């Protein structure tokens, strides 16, 4: 059977690798549709023929679950990520801690759109929790996605940006100035679930199971994700 997976763009490389491995041991074929989680969610809402939805944030998955578009019992979150603050690789701002974002060293801060894009939403929640948001809000340059934030830092028009740890590796012209400690960040999780109405239910479930195996986990970890141990708190 052919399983169609709607997955967040940031998972492209790891999922391609995992699918290749999976296809050597299964007769099922895996087809992907990569895009922004929000786009994928909209598509599923409009009846797109997806078998599995692999989102970059819980909010989108919640929305679909609320509408009864996924099989609740299949939903699992086995990946997470963390945020980092990036600056230009050469001559970037000297930032040692998130508090420096408030100072004059940072005149502008690039974030993925803090209302709709997961990375932006997480960053905003983090800053709010640290009571930094009100001081930083005016400096924020919202971009469409992580790549926009990185490009903005590269271009030198913003002093810093907040992106996923997995994304920071994309550009050689930026460097991680400081990691945001896992305890402070909101719970960044990548939930996956089988879509209701899937005509290849068994195959979809099988692939979803495979994604949670250790074998797949290694691939995810190689690409910078944090694999959550099964049974760790949701």
């Amino acid at each position, binding site marked *: 059977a052919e399983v169609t997976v709607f997955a967040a*763009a940031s998972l*492209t490389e790891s999922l391609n690798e995992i699918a290749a491995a999976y296809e050597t041991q299964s007769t099922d074929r895996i087809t*992907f549709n*990569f*895009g922004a989680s929000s786009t994928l969610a909209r598509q599923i809402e*409009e009846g*797109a023929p997806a078998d599995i939805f692999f989102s970059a944030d819980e909010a989108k998955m919640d929305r679909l679950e609320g509408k009864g578009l996924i099989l609740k019992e299949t939903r699992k979150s086995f990946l997470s990520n963390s945020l980092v603050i990036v600056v230009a690789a050469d001559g970037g701002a000297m930032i040692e801690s998130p508090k420096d974002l408030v100072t004059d060293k940072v005149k502008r801060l690039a974030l993925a759109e803090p209302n709709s894009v997961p990375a932006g939403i997480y960053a905003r929640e983090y800053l709010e929790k640290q009571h930094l948001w009100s001081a930083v809000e005016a400096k924020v340059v919202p971009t469409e996605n992580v790549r926009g934030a*990185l490009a903005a830092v590269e271009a030198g028009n913003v002093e810093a940006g907040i992106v996923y740890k997995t994304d920071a*590796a994309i550009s050689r012209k930026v460097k991680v100035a400081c990691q945001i400690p896992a305890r402070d960040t909101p719970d960044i999780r990548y939930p996956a679930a089988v879509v209701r109405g899937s005509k290849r239910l068994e195959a979809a479930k099988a692939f979803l199971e495979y994604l949670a195996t250790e074998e797949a986990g290694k691939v995810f970890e190689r690409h910078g994700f944090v694999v959550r141990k099964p049974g760790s708190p949701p």
Partner: protein
Amino acid sequence: MTAQEWQIVWFTAWVAALSSLAILPVGLPAAWLLARRDWPGKSLVETLISLPLVLPPVATGLILLKLFGRRGAIGGFLHDRLDLDVVFTWRGVLLALSVMSLPLLVRSARVAFEEVDPRLEQIARTLGAGNLRVFCTITLPLASRGIVGGMILAFARALGEFGATIMVAGNIPGKTSTLSLAIYQNVQLGQDAHAFRLLGVSVALAFMAVWGSELLLRKARRKP
């Protein structure tokens, strides 16, 4: 380039070309009506036709998705009656590209039709030509420069279209992935080298279209 990349290139070239042709039967009559007839609500219709240009592509994509999805008014009918799926298939790509590039053809062709001297059409009628013959043998060839120009714009736009395509057809490798989507993805993933290679291919396709049309027009002008 990998086999997969070649597949994307062929698919893109083919679907973009197909969409530039597919919009002719709708676009040319519409353009002609706008150019030559006065009717109430003309400006409105003209605005509607240019909507896909005015709206952010995702919005257009969403509207198309709503209409052509299995639950949509048109998509439902097609699926139930003809067992035809549009969205997330190559047909969805064709649909998105066609809709997005239609306004470019219509406006170019409209201007071209307006510039055709009606006197020539009249004289063709005295020579016994009916409306269809006049249109095909006089109006159309005389407007050809503008129409070809519009088709090139449409083709170029089809090559570059991203927002509506990804909404309607997704980015399914080997099925709906176009050059533009692949470039986007490579850019997102920071694989600039890849992206630039594909950009090069896009540019080459566009160049061939421009150059081919130039040649075509020049030959058409020399032919007599």
